């Protein structure tokens, strides 16, 4: 396996968008090619992550760029992990020497593809889904147990939303409606969704896209890339399956994925400056501090309340604002996380820059598959 670098990124501002997923995808593909300063002809393969927008989504994205017929296009689906898994797939293609340059794209339009007001319909063979286990209910079960075991309060959980939305204040790619100042009262008193999770503790189902162009060391030289970001680890794991009791205040698959990434990269949590994690709900980020090894079991809340996970702390969690400030278009988020980490490592995040960031990590799980904590988890460690 040879070294792989990110040489181009494409981003758009997330939100409830009138353009369908393929238009959003085309925008970030063009932006990434422009950012890299290469030609479309230099790209050897494309991977497109999407959750729910239909069949042949990748070919639909690339058709209108005129690139269909010129390169293999492979569609990647693992619910929320799809976009990051598309980047991982592009990475593998370059690492193994099949291509010099490949692109991973994540794109999703949820708002144009949703029956008004309905939660995702369950697979009829999934007992939990049939009985009403929407995603927020599953995380609410974790939050309730976490509060029971640790004594954390609703006001404590609210601090995750407050921090992440504050981080996003000057980020032009975050959802304008969900960034900036929000008070404890506004979080705690917003509409109850599933106790203890109120509306402002849940990510919105927004629309968005992200693209990441990866390349070999030779290609970096050939194109004269000024700030290549090295992919130190790109790992995908699947969720351990058991129908017995699990520690829902921990996370087996996230732990598995994070520690595999540490092993692959030779980098530990103490060396990481910033993390974009799967903060779909306030409780998720709290659980991940511990599952990813940034603190001991039971110390997550203390990390948050002590300011260890914001600017000036030990490690900045969700400097882009996370999903709590972007919303979470299923297939898009994983690629957008990687794109933002690259922008941070290049030092281009005016007004929300993590000072001196040299190493960044992304983590995104996917799929509420019964018997697993998540079906998939994709982790990246990047450095400059």
């Amino acid at each position, binding site marked *: 396996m040879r070294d792989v670098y990110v040489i181009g990124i494409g981003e758009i501002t997330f939100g409830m968008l009138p353009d369908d997923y393929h238009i959003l995808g085309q925008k970030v593909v063009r932006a990434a090619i422009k950012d890299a300063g290469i030609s479309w002809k230099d790209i050897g393969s494309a991977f497109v992550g999407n959750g729910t927008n239909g069949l042949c989504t990748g070919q639909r994205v690339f058709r209108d760029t005129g690139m269909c017929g010129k390169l293999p296009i492979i569609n990647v689906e693992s619910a929320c992990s799809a976009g990051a898994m598309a980047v991982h797939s592009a990475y593998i293609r370059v690492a193994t020497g099949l291509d010099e340059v490949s692109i991973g794209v994540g794109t999703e339009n949820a708002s144009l593809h949703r029956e008004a007001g*309905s*939660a995702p*319909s*369950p697979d009829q063979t999934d*007992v*939990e889904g*049939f*009985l*009403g*286990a*929407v995603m*927020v*209910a599953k995380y*609410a*079960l*974790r*939050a*309730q*147990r976490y509060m*029971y075991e640790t004594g954390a309060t609703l006001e404590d959980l609210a601090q995750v939303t407050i921090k992440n939305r504050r981080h996003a204040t000057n980020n032009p790619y975050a959802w304008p409606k969900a960034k900036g100042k929000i008070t404890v009262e506004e979080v705690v008193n917003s*509409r*109850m*969704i*599933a*106790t*203890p*999770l109120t509306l402002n503790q849940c990510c919105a189902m927004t629309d968005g896209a992200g693209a990441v162009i990866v390349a070999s060391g030779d290609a970096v030289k050939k194109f004269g890339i000024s700030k290549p970001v090295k992919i130190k680890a790109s790992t995908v794991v699947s969720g351990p*399956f058991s*129908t*017995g*009791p*699990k520690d*829902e205040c921990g996370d087996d698959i996230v732990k598995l994925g994070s520690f595999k990434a540490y092993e692959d990269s030779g980098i530990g949590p103490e060396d990481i400056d910033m993390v974009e994690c799967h903060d779909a709900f306030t409780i998720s980020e709290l659980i991940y501090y511990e599952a990813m090894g940034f603190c001991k079991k039971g110390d997550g809340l203390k990390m948050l309340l002590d300011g260890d996970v914001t600017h000036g702390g030990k490690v900045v969690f969700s400097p882009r604002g996370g999903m709590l400030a972007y919303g979470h278009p299923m297939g898009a988020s994983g690629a957008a996380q990687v794109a933002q980490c690259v922008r941070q490592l290049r030092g281009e995040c005016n007004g929300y820059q993590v000072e001196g960031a040299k190493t960044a990590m992304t983590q995104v799980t996917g799929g509420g598959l*019964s018997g697993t904590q998540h079906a998939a988890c994709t982790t990246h460690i990047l450095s400059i």
Partner: protein
Amino acid sequence: MADKKQKETKEDITFFHPDIFETPENAPPFLKGYKCKKCGKIWFPKFVPCPNPDCWSEEMEVVALSRRGKIYSYTDVYIGQPTMRSYMPMTMAYVDLPEGVRVFSQLEGEVGSFRCDEEVELVAGPVRNNLDGKPITGYKFKKISS
């Protein structure tokens, strides 16, 4: 004949789900675990063959699971699909049974009245409506009646 078949189908869709839940006429309802005759592991819901990759045995024995369990966690849920909305808010929970099985279930009883580690017992009751608006009977847990 056609009428009979249609009637059976209609009845079937108001009960969830004969493979995992039994409501005998003169005895309390129970959940069905699937015990692997080779490795001894008990699974819920139904898995045939055994999902243990070192086993994959086809020989699975149906066992009645304990009717009492302990709430691992619970949540009062205010959102869901249209066919569940007339039941909302409703409490959902993970219930741990002594056989080492964790069951996701709705709880019957007042919203806000449940606690972690509280003991509950299995009952049959409506869990959602079908598309005709008829309630579907499934398994639930409720506080233990003293």
